[in-house]
């Protein structure tokens, strides 16, 4: 991964353009720069849904292989209409869930992957419990907004839902959280 150099300063849009149209060396370096920039995000999403280091690494590879195949000669090229993270998020999430289901089938443990994703091991504390008590889709928008720092447009793109739906879902999630007495106490001066 050495030698990306100046490409590190390029925007995602410029790097994607190089991957679409550049020569072999430039394209490979541009892709490495995209990988270096977003690998931590992808592994975070992968681990968020799987809570399994091996699966998370498989998801990382799946996600960047998916991205790579978008570029010629295997793909028609990538057109970025939102932040790259909003493209990577659903790929990583679906890959993690798919891997979990495979593991589940092999072990026949009967563990619901959604349940695993929603309630990871460890001590989440009362505040986290409050968030995890939200309906799953509201939890998800809270995480995308406050942990992943996504804009509403990027949340909509990541979840493949209309912007209005993303807005109302986030609004309802925040309102529900703010109605919880512990949160109310934290917000009051």
């Amino acid at each position: 991964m050495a030698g990306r150099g100046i490409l590190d300063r390029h925007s995602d849009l410029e790097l994607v353009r190089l991957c679409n149209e550049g020569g072999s060396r430039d394209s490979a370096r541009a892709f490495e720069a995209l990988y270096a920039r977003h690998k931590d995000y992808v592994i975070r999403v992968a681990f968020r849904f799987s809570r399994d280091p091996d699966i998370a690494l498989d998801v990382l590879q799946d996600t960047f292989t998916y991205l790579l195949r978008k570029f010629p000669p295997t793909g028609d090229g990538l057109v970025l209409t939102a932040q790259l993270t909003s493209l990577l998020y659903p790929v990583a999430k679906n890959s993690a869930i798919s891997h979990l289901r495979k593991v589940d089938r092999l072990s026949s443990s009967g563990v619901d992957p959604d349940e695993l994703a929603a309630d990871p091991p460890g001590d989440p504390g009362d505040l986290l419990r409050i968030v995890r008590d939200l309906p799953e889709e509201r939890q998800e928008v809270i995480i995308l907004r406050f942990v992943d720092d996504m804009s509403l447009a990027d949340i909509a793109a990541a979840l493949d839902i209309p912007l209005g739906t993303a807005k109302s879902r986030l609004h309802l999630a925040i309102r529900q959280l703010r109605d919880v007495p512990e949160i109310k106490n934290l917000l009051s001066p």
Partner: protein
Amino acid sequence: MSTDDPHLQELDALPESLVDALRSADRPPALITSRVDREIADLAAGQFAGRGGGARRSRPARVGMVAMAASVLIAVAALLSVFRGPDPERGSIYADIDGSGRIDIADVRALARDVGSNGVSRAEIEAFAARVVELDRGGDAT
């Protein structure tokens, strides 16, 4: 955090401790090794291999470049055929084309009527004409 909706800006004020807790809980252990990085780099190198070192152009642009190069070659070939002298191997065109029993300007005209389609170039016709004029002035036709 992005604040792209005025209504949500007001509501975005979730307690910082809650946001911090969410972020801490979402932090994965260090999993990515240099081997993983290398595997991805190898995949990328394989994907883009064969594109050549220069910038890869879009398909329509490449077709345009090829068409332009072909046009230039055709133009150069046409210019060469116009300006070069007669081919020494093509002595047969200096002949009695119309069967009149002599080589004269009528043979040049007969040959010129089918210029291009009979494999004879305009330059060769002009050379033929010059030769005929030379003959008429008493030069050696052989």
